[in-house]
Structure formats: structure tokens, C-alpha cells
């Protein structure tokens, strides 16, 4: 920063900078505290001596998490669900959004109504549950992928992005005899990288962070995504194994372990989202402020 720039700042500016610094600290403080806890020795933790810097630094908690097949398995399972689910959702979203930008599509009005109704009226938890039951999807790993594979809100974001691509591009390709598949693959998809990145982030975060589908439809712990496993560990839900292993004998270690598991399941997202910032800002704006 040059001195010239600093000179242009008045007292008011410093106040705003100070406010922003405080806000930033409030945002990151809990994460830093948790990170410190996850790296600290159990004795310090019990005495409540760990604040923002690890005391009695050690990696035991992480070693334990990384050495426990249950967590590793759940991690890869969630990563798999996130990857496949995101690809599936992006495909479905594109398939739905692209045909709807053609004015010549007959029945477009009807299809739009069909789609809009689902945004305002949801059958509800129990009818959905009974549907999954009748489709034999309960306790089936597919239930974590298929039922939530298309978000109408995201489809609308993508469609409004497609609308922004000049019709002339499409029309000249049509005149050259390109099929609609080709136009989608050669013109629309390459030009829509920003919105695809945005929606990929939205879908991936939703998949990585989601747990309610698994909570309601899956009983087999082998299929638990990371967040549900985390919920059970933190709340000591019916997981006798965890409780006896880490809970009762050394309560402090359990705290570091919890902290380590939280960090372990959060770091992937925290590493990705800053790189997509310029994309998702656009996506959010399209979604909320109609143009």
C-alpha cells in the first residue's frame, strides 16, 4: 500500500476499517479456537486453558481420526456422493434449463407451470418418506443421490444465464445445420462456465453439508455421510463404541477428538470456496434479483 492511498483516508474510514476488522475476527475466531483445541493436549483442555493457540501441541487427535476406518470410510463415501451428486445435478439442471430457452418449444408454458408449482408446494416430509418406501429406496444408497438431484432454483439461475447468451450465436449454428445437442455442447456449455462453477459449488456444498436425507431415509450406518456421523459423535447418539473408546475414561481427549473431527470434515470446503468467489457472487445475484 502506498502512502498516498493512506493519506486519502479520513477518521471515518478508519472507523469502518476497525468495524470490519472486528467482524472478520468474530467470523474466524470460533474456527481458530477449534483448530487450537484439536491440536492441544487433553490436560490443558480439561482445565480450559486453550483459547486461540494450541497448548501441549500434539497431533494425537488427528492421528486417531485418520487411523479410524469409520471416519475415513465416511469421508470417502461423502466425497463420492458429493462428486457424483454434483455431476448428476449439473447434468439434470442443464438438461432442464436449455430446452426452456427456445420460444419455439411447444408446451413450454405448461412445463413452466409444472416446474413453478414444485417451488411453492411441497408434499411434505411424510409423503416423501412413503414415496421412498414404495420405491424401495429406504436404506438404499441411491436415496442419497437421486431424490435431490435437481434444484428448481438452481435451474432458474442457469436458465437466466442461458438467456443472456445472444440468440444470434444459436441461430447461426442452426443455419449451419448443427443439431440442438451440438449447440448445447459446443456453444452453451463452454460459454456458461461461470454459472456452471457457481452451481457446482452450491450443489457440492449442499451435498457435503447435508444430512437430513440420510437421517430420514437411511438406517445402515455404513451409508452415513460425514455430517450425520459427526452429529452422532458429538451428541453421543447411541454410539456405545465411541463413548467407551474416548468418552468415559478420558473426557478431555473426547473434546480434542470432536474438534479434530469437525476440522477434518470442514477443511475441504474451506479450501475450495475462496477460489470460486467471483463466480458465486454472480450466481447469488441472478437468483435473488430478477433481471
Amino acid at each position: 500500500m502506498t502512502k498516498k492511498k493512506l493519506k486519502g483516508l479520513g477518521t471515518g474510514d478508519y472507523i469502518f476499517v476497525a468495524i470490519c476488522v472486528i467482524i472478520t475476527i468474530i467470523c474466524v475466531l470460533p474456527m481458530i479456537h477449534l483448530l487450537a483445541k484439536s491440536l492441544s493436549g487433553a490436560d490443558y483442555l480439561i482445565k480450559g486453558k486453550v483459547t486461540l493457540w494450541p497448548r501441549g501441541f500434539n497431533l494425537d487427535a488427528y492421528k486417531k481420526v485418520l487411523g479410524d476406518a469409520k471416519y475415513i470410510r465416511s469421508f470417502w463415501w461423502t466425497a463420492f456422493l458429493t462428486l457424483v451428486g454434483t455431476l448428476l445435478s449439473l447434468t439434470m439442471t442443464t438438461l432442464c434449463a436449455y430446452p426452456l430457452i427456445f420460444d419455439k418449444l411447444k408446451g413450454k408454458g405448461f412445463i413452466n407451470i409444472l416446474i413453478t408449482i414444485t417451488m411453492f408446494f411441497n408434499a411434505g416430509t411424510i409423503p416423501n418418506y412413503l414415496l421412498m418406501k414404495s420405491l424401495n429406496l429406504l436404506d438404499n444408497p441411491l436415496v442419497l443421490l437421486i431424490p435431490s438431484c435437481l434444484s428448481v432454483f438452481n435451474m432458474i439461475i442457469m436458465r437466466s444465464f442461458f438467456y443472456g447468451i445472444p440468440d444470434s450465436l444459436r441461430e447461426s449454428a442452426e443455419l449451419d445445420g448443427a443439431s440442438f445437442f451440438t449447440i448445447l455442447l459446443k456453444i452453451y456449455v463452454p460459454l456458461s462456465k461461470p454459472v456452471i462453477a457457481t452451481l457446482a459449488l452450491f450443489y457440492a456444498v449442499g451435498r457435503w453439508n447435508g444430512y437430513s436425507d440420510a437421517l430420514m431415509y437411511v438406517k445402515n450406518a455404513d451409508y452415513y455421510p460425514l455430517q450425520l456421523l459427526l452429529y452422532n459423535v458429538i451428541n453421543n447418539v447411541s454410539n456405545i463404541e465411541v463413548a467407551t473408546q474416548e468418552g468415559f475414561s478420558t473426557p478431555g481427549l473426547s473434546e480434542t477428538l470432536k474438534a479434530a473431527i469437525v476440522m477434518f470434515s470442514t477443511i475441504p470446503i474451506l479450501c475450495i470456496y475462496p477460489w470460486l468467489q467471483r463466480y458465486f457472487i454472480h450466481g447469488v445475484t441472478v437468483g435473488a434479483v430478477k433481471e
Partner: protein
Amino acid sequence: MEENKIINNPEQTPQASSKMKIQLTKENKMKDKKWVVYLSRYWQLYALLFLPILYLIIFKYLPMVYVQIAFKDYKFRESVWALPFTKNYGFGHFIKAFKNADFRYAIRNTVVLNLLDLVVGFPAPIIFALILNELKLPKFKKVVQTVAYMPHFLSWIIVASLALQLFAPSTGLVNVAVKALGGEPIPFLNEPTHWVVTYILIGIWQSFGWNSIVYLAAIAGINQELYEAASVDGAGRFRKMWHITLPGIKPTIVVLLVMALGNILGSSFDRPFAFQNNTVMNVSNVISTFVYSYGIKGLKFELSTAVGLFQSVVGVIFLLLANNISRRLGERGIW
């Protein structure tokens, strides 16, 4: 159309009309041909739409069949269509629901928590966007934004466990500090009133940054000449904020406010469920978690379906009302 012409024209001889008929069939054939031509060109678009539409029909419309059980007596292994209606003309489950104290609490909690979120949480992103807009250091601004968006990317399970780590009565960082300062530990998450306050504030923490994006975009769309003109007239920072920026983003504020009001009976599941614990069930049980515990855990399908239907219908009515209000205020509707 052609047929109408024939009827309306009495001078037409039978011969002429038969000629017309031949023409008519020809035109029909042309029409068929048009369809063939149309489909031979556009079938690909329908092929592309096939999977998404199938998805919507199976996973969004088919469950509506099961909504009937809100009015019926559910029996396992029997078609929902064949089930008999329940007592009180099919409204028995609704009556039962409203007699249920847990459900009445759930409605109250849903409305109260949503209203508190609205009153306390709605202004937060606006204020944050206004503050960010005043920052003159672009790089610093970007860092602040990135950090402020971070909580939105944490799952509610993570946020709840962060809260537990910070606010636990004996080992939580905040209570350790309180005790060090000679105070009594505060039961942030274990006493109803404290829980509500903590829950609302954590909700703001999680969402204020993310929600500010929309307002920042709206602010970016304000004509810069207005600010220059105001500067020439000697307006200070706050007068510009009050007289230019705020009116400039008013349409966005109104639309989002009306949307939030329309969603006052809506309830997400992930957030309240992650924060619930047995000591605060009276204030933390909302409709979505009530449906989960009664329906899926307690297997009371009819009652929970009735509750869900009630919530959906009231939700739609509120949204329509909200949209209407938004239009009457002279703003664009939500749709």
C-alpha cells in the same frame, strides 16, 4: 375454421362443399406433416427434457398422492386410494393436531424464531453491505468479504458443534472467560431464553455475509453521478448513505423483506435440529422437527402429514399475500 365457413355460407352447393371437404382433409394432412416437420426438428429438445420432467413427476408430484393420508386412516400395505376417510369428515387428524400441545408449541416456536430472525437478522446484511461499501481499500475489502462468506459454507452440524465448544457451561471458551472475570457460567444452550438468543445470534453469524452479496450487487448498480452531485452539494458520508444508497437498494430490501414475511411459517430442518437438546425442547421444537419426531420416529404418519399439509397450504397463502403486498407497494412482485 373451414367448417364454420361452410355452415355460414348458404349459397354453397353440395358439390362445392364436398370439394371443400377434400381440401380440408388435405390441410389436415398438411397439419400432420407440419407436426412431423416440427418434431423432426425439435424432438431433441423433448429428449433433453425427458429426464428432468420424469424426475419432477416422480419425486415432486407422486408424493402428493400420499398427501391424502392426512384425511384418511393409514394402513400399511394398502393402496392409499382405497383407504377410508377418517372421522370428522376426514379432518380428524387436523383436529387432533391442534389439540396436541407439542404441535401448538411447534407453531409458536416456528413463528417466534422466524420473526426474531427477521427483526434482528434482516438488517444485519444491509448494514454490513453499507459498511463494506464505505471501505476504500479494495484488497482489504475483498479479504473481509471472503471471511464473512465463510460461515455460510459450514454445515449446521459444524456450526452447532462450534457453538457447543464455545458456549459449553464448564469448558466452553466464553464461560471460561466469564468465570475468570468472576461471573457465574451462562447456560447459553441449556436454558430456554438463553438458547433462543444464542440460536438467533448464531443464525446471523452464519448468514449475514452471504446475504450481503445481493445488497452489494444492488449498491453497485446505483448511478455514481448521484454521489458526485451530492458531494458537490456538500453532502457528507452519512447523508449520501441515507439519501442515495438506501433509497437505491430499497427495491431489493422490499422484495427480500416481503419474501421473508411470506416464509414466516416455513421451517428448515437442518438448523433447529442441529441445535436442539432436551433441556430446551419447549422453545426449540419447530414444525419440521415436530414432523420428524412424530412422523418418522413415532410413525404417526397421518398426523404428521396433516401438519405438513397445513404448513404447505398456509405457506402458499402467505407467499401469495406477500407477493400481492409487494406489488401494491409499487415494487416488482417476487415472480
